[in-house]
């Protein structure tokens, strides 16, 4: 990982091509797969990532080096993504998935409909394909949080910084995303013995 010492930060601020290339090499593909995971097409995602780096360079004076470069770049990606979606979709206070989840427990908090054990013989490729369809059922915010938390493995605190949401809200969106995916995958027959 690129170390953010003063010298490196200085080189970035001077827009040293080698330092910039190192950031692009380290973060470019990661940003691309996140953009794809958030629902953008191949060309949109490529364009979005290029935009992220342009903004990164243009705003580099504001980058104080306290955050990781990756967190800063994902913040820009999140912001750009919201701009592109234009209509700022408000997160629903209640999502139907909450009811579905709650209905699986009795009044004492025990499972009424216990989860089946997942299939053990699903190939990674098959799993990847199945979940791609299911991701379409998530709201943009759920999808963004799921991508950052689950795939990029960013901490809840980092995702709060990136998205400007509270830690509780990030947790709720992550939970809703996972439960929707779980329902969708179960609907595709996952977890049933073959």
């Amino acid at each position: 990982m690129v170390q953010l010492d003063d010298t490196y930060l200085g080189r970035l601020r001077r827009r040293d091509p080698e330092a910039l290339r190192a950031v692009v090499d380290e973060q470019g593909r990661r940003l691309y797969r996140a953009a794809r995971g958030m629902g953008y097409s191949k060309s949109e995602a490529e364009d979005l990532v290029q935009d992220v780096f342009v903004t990164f360079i243009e705003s580099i004076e504001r980058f104080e080096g306290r955050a990781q470069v990756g967190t800063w770049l994902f913040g820009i990606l999140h912001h750009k993504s919201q701009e592109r979606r234009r209509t700022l979709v408000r997160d629903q206070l209640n999502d139907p998935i909450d009811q579905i989840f709650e209905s699986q427990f009795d009044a004492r908090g025990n499972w009424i409909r216990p989860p089946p054990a997942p299939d053990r013989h699903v190939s990674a490729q098959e799993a990847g394909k199945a979940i791609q369809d299911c991701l379409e059922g998530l709201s943009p915010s759920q999808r963004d949080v799921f991508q950052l938390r689950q795939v990029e493995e960013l901490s809840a605190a980092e995702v709060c910084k990136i998205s400007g949401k509270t830690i509780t809200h990030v947790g709720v969106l992550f939970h809703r995303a996972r439960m929707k995916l779980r329902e969708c995958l179960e609907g595709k027959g996952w977890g049933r013995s073959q």
Partner: protein
Amino acid sequence: MMTCHDVSTLVSTGELPEAPLVRRLGVRMHLAMCRHCRAFRRQVATIARAARAASLTFERELPEDFESKIVQRLRPLDGGV
């Protein structure tokens, strides 16, 4: 005593690693005794594996000159050092 609802919510929101020690111990004890919650945790892990597999598919579709194209677009903005 933690319920299945408490445990599955803590697992699913991703709050478990940051939860107080008492809660984490409570979850561990509950999981040791409850096969349904263990199945739930495995489902969540399966979702994670599937999402990472999908992500690798996205990465594989990138052209080899992906980074070079970005650097080219940045050239007018770099310091030309």
